[in-house]
C-alpha cells in the first residue's frame, strides 16, 4: 500500500471520529493534518525537489545551466588575467581546461567597449579643441564598438570550434570562448596608452598589442591542435592574422581623427 493510501485511510478513520464528536478542535487538527500531507511530496509519487528539473532544450534558458561557468573566485580571475599578459608561456589552456569561466570574457569585452568608446571620444575631443573646432559627441562609437567586440568574441570561437571539429582535434566551446575573451585583455592598457597624440606611437602600441594577443591565442591553440596533423599550421596562422587584423581595425576606426 502506498504511503498516500495509508495516510488517506488514517484520515478516514479520524474523520469518522470527528464527524461523530463534531468538535471544532478536532476539525482544526484534521485540516492541519490534511494540509500537511497534501502539500508534502508523498514518497516517490512526486519527483524529488533537489534535482534540477530539465526538459531538454528548456535548460539553456535557466540560470542553473550556466552556473558552472561562473564558479571562480577573485583570485582565480586575477591569475588568469596575469597569465594572458605573458603570451609566450602557452600554459593558459592547461590551467583553464577543467574550469573554464565565462565571467572573464564577458566582462573584459564590456570593459573594452567602455574604454574604447571613452578613449575614442576623448581623443576626438582633444583634437577638435586643439584646433578650436566644433565638436559633437558621437554616440555611434558605443554601439559600433559593442558590435565589434561582442561579435568577435562570439563568432570567431564558434567558427574555430567547427573547423577544429572538422579536423578532428576538438576543443570545448567554452574553453575557446575563455581563450578569446582573455586574449582581448591586453587591448585595455593599449587603448589607454593610445591617448598620446603621436601617430607613430599609436601605431607601435597597436602593433605590439595585436602581436601579443595573437601570439597568446596561437601558442595556446598550437599546444592543443598539434595532434591534428598536417593542417595545424594553417589554422594557427589564420588565427594569428585575424587577431592582428582586429588590432589594426581598432586603431583605424578609433584613432583616425579628421579635423
Amino acid at each position: 500500500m502506498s504511503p498516500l493510501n495509508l495516510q488517506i485511510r488514517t484520515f478516514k478513520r479520524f474523520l469518522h471520529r470527528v464527524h461523530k464528536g463534531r468538535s471544532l478542535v478536532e476539525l482544526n487538527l484534521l485540516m492541519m493534518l490534511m494540509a500537511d500531507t497534501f502539500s508534502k511530496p508523498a514518497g516517490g509519487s512526486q519527483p524529488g525537489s533537489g534535482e534540477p528539473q530539465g526538459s531538454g532544450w528548456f535548460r539553456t534558458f535557466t540560470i542553473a545551466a550556466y552556473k558552472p561557468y561562473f564558479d571562480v573566485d577573485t583570485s582565480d580571475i586575477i591569475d588568469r588575467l596575469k597569465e594572458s599578459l605573458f603570451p609566450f608561456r602557452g600554459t593558459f589552456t592547461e590551467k583553464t581546461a577543467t574550469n573554464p569561466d565565462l565571467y572573464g570574457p564577458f566582462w573584459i569585452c564590456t570593459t573594452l567597449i567602455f574604454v574604447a568608446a571613452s578613449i575614442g571620444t576623448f581623443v576626438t575631443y582633444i583634437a577638435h579643441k586643439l584646433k578650436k573646432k566644433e565638436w559633437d559627441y558621437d554616440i555611434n562609437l558605443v554601439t559600433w564598438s559593442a558590435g565589434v567586440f561582442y561579435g568577435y568574441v562570439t563568432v570567431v570561437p564558434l567558427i574555430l570550434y567547427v573547423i577544429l571539429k572538422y579536423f578532428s582535434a576538438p576543443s570545448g566551446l567554452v574553453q575557446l570562448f575563455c581563450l578569446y575573451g582573455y586574449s582581448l585583455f591586453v587591448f585595455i592598457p593599449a587603448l589607454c596608452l593610445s591617448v598620446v597624440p603621436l601617430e607613430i606611437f599609436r601605431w607601435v602600441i597597436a602593433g605590439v598589442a595585436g602581436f601579443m594577443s595573437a601570439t597568446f591565442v596561437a601558442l595556446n591553440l598550437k599546444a592543443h591542435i598539434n595532434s591534428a596533423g598536417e593542417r595545424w599550421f594553417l589554422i594557427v596562422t589564420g588565427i594569428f592574422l585575424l587577431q592582428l587584423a582586429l588590432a589594426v581595425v581598432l586603431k583605424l576606426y578609433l584613432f583616425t581623427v579628421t579635423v
Partner: protein
Amino acid sequence: MSISHSDTIPLRPSNSQSDIDEIRSLIDDSVHSGPAVVLPARHPATTPPPSSSPFISSNIPPPPPVSSSSSLQKLQSVPAAPPPPPPVGNSSSIVANGFGPPPNTLTEPVLDTVKRDLWRIVSNLKLVVFPNPFREDPGKALRDWDLWGPFFFIVFLGVALSWSASVKKSQVFAVAFALLAAGAVILTLNVLLLGGHIIFFQSLSLLGYCLFPLDVGALICMLKDNVVAKVIIVCLALAWSSWAAYPFMSSAVNPNRKALALYPVLLMYLSVGFLIIAID
C-alpha cells in the same frame, strides 16, 4: 454510510481519488451538520476582495485583525488549494480568502493611490540612498521594493541626457535607457550566476534607486556648462551611487567573490557618468 462508534472501517479496495471525494463529503457533513461554530467565509458588510494575490505580502499592508475567524478561514482555504478535483458546489463557502478582508484599493480615489506610491518611493529612497550607518543589517535590502521609483529615475536620466545632447537626441535617449535597463538586469544575473543570493526584482529595484545621485548630477550638469565643474560633480555623484550600492551587492555573494560582483556595478555607473560628462 453508517457511522459506528468503533474505530475501524471495513477496508475495501479503492483508489485515492474516491478516497479524496469521500473525505470531502465527510468534511461537508461535519461542517454543515455541526453547530454554528464555523463562521461564514466573509463578513457580510465587506465586499469581496479584488484579485490581488495574497501571496505578494510585501506590497499589501497587513489585513485588519478579524480575530479567530480569519485563522479558521486560513485553515479552511488550504485544503481547497491542492489540485485535482474541482471543488464540489456546496463546499464553496469554505473556499475563502484566508487572510481576512484586505483593504479595498480598487475603489479608493486615484489621488490616494498616487500619494501612497509616491510616499513609498520617497521612503525607499531614504532607505537606500541615505543609508543609516548604524542600522542593524546594512546588507538587508528593501522590504517594500517597487519598480516605479527606478523607472522614474531611468527615464529622467535618459531625458536629461537627451536634452543636453545637441545632435541625435533620440539615439542618445535610446542608448542611455538601454544601457541602464539592460545593465541592471545583467548585474543581477551576474550576482545570481556567481552563486549569490538575491531576489531578482528586489535587486533591480535597488540598483534603480541607487541611480538617484547620478540623476541629481545630470540635472546640475544640464544647468552648468563648465567641463571641469562637470567632471567634479559627476565624480561626486558616482562616488555616492557606488557607496549606496556597495553594502547590498557585497553582502549578496560569497566574500571570495565580492570584487567580482562589485566591479560591474562600478563599471556601469562609470559609463553612465562618462555619458553625462561627454554629452554637452
